[in-house]
């Protein structure tokens, strides 16, 4: 059974009486010896190259600086991504006829549209914003709420069509997500790969397609909505990190 004071051996500021305890506890003594030895190990670190060799390591950075003397602000990528998503939705909304039979009421239809518009905008911005991880983690419950709202706002009228006829809806949604997803993945290569960022980008791209289908598709059946409206969103959101993982990052900045 380990000594109850063992954790103090790995602390930068152990209790004042720890030194006395250490003298009588071989376990804590060895643990503290290992902890202090790590610092000693630092002095065995590889010797840095001499000054000329070190300066040579900055060559690529200086060349990049000469080629691009003005810093590119991160929000430009956020604007590009959000614009791609919103533009795709706007084009589809104008080109495809609208239908309201999917929704239980006009108010429900508007509420669900607002929910997915919020998801699209938030996911697009958070995919590229240099913010802490906890902000991107908020997207998952937000998307979950939008999905629940979609089912709550459904008319549950499937118009007597066979279930497989919904494949067309999924195909349209995936096709609409393609362009904003391409923009998103290109933007994501400007910094280090992070799965949740790529998922957010996929969510933003897919939301554009779902939002268009929300206005266009007359089928309010729950099975249809889950499989052929929400399903493609989940698919694109999962695929985006897998695709991004295989792409080369142009920068390793977070």
């Amino acid at each position, binding site marked *: 059974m380990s000594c109850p004071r063992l954790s103090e051996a790995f602390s930068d500021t152990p209790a004042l009486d720890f030194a006395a305890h250490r003298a009588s506890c071989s376990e804590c003594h060895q643990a503290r010896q290992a902890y202090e*030895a*790590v610092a000693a190990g630092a002095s065995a670190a590889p010797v840095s190259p001499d000054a000329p060799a070190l300066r040579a390591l900055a060559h690529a950075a200086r060349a990049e600086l000469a080629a691009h003397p003005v810093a590119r602000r991160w929000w430009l990528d956020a604007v590009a991504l959000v614009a791609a998503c919103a533009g795709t939705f706007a084009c589809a909304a104008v080109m495809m006829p609208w239908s309201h039979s999917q929704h239980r009421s006009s108010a429900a239809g508007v509420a669900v549209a607002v929910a997915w518009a919020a998801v699209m905008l938030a996911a697009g911005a958070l995919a590229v914003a240099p913010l802490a991880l906890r902000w991107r983690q908020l997207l998952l419950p937000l998307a979950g709420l939008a999905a629940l709202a979609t089912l709550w706002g459904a008319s549950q009228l499937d118009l007597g069509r066979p279930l497989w006829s919904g494949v067309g809806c999924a195909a349209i949604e995936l096709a609409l997500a393609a362009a904003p997803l391409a923009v998103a993945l290109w933007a994501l290569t400007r910094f280090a790969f992070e799965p949740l960022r790529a998922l957010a980008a996929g969510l933003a791209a897919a939301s554009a397609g779902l939002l268009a289908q929300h206005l266009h598709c007359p089928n309010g059946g729950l099975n249809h909505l889950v499989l052929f409206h929400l399903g493609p969103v989940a698919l694109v959101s999962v695929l985006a990190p897998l695709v991004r993982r295989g792409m080369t990052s142009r920068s390793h900045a977070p």
Partner: protein
Amino acid sequence: MKPDGPLLRTDAELVSDEALMERFCAGDTAAFDVLFVRHAPAVRGYLGQLLKSAQTADDLTQQTFLSLVRSRGRFIAGHRFKPWLYAIATNAARDALRRGHTESLTDDGALPDSPAEPAPESDRGLKRQVLAALHQLPLAQREAIFMHRFEGLSFADIAQAAGVPESTVKVRAHRGYQRLRELLQGLWEETK
């Protein structure tokens, strides 16, 4: 925002990393030179210790500062510079490991034909034992310990660099030290 004026050599020693980064983002290239001179040796040492390869450390040090230049628009004014820099270096190392772009060279600079043999007994000191044991730790624990004990970053800074909560960093470091103790204890018992 334009810099107040040219960065004099005496001024450089007094200006904080954050102020230098702000100047650099505003277009003062001399500020980048100061940051490079100030941090490149430590970053290279960190990468060399993390990956146990001098050539890879050189390559990744280049990539780290290249990424710093390319992504200087992503640095948020008011945030600390050093954790951000080490986040870049750590991401570069993880990416290299993920893609298998790391090599370990023999002492004369050649690629090994076979896995490296352990150092002979006569060469083993505590320092080598510790470094060998550190390299047996999982990458996340190794990163936490190297940044904490070798680079002097606080757990809050390491959390910012690693992109995880501070509690996660503390758990990683604690588990790393405990594993280190187990590895070293085994070594010490063998040599008795």
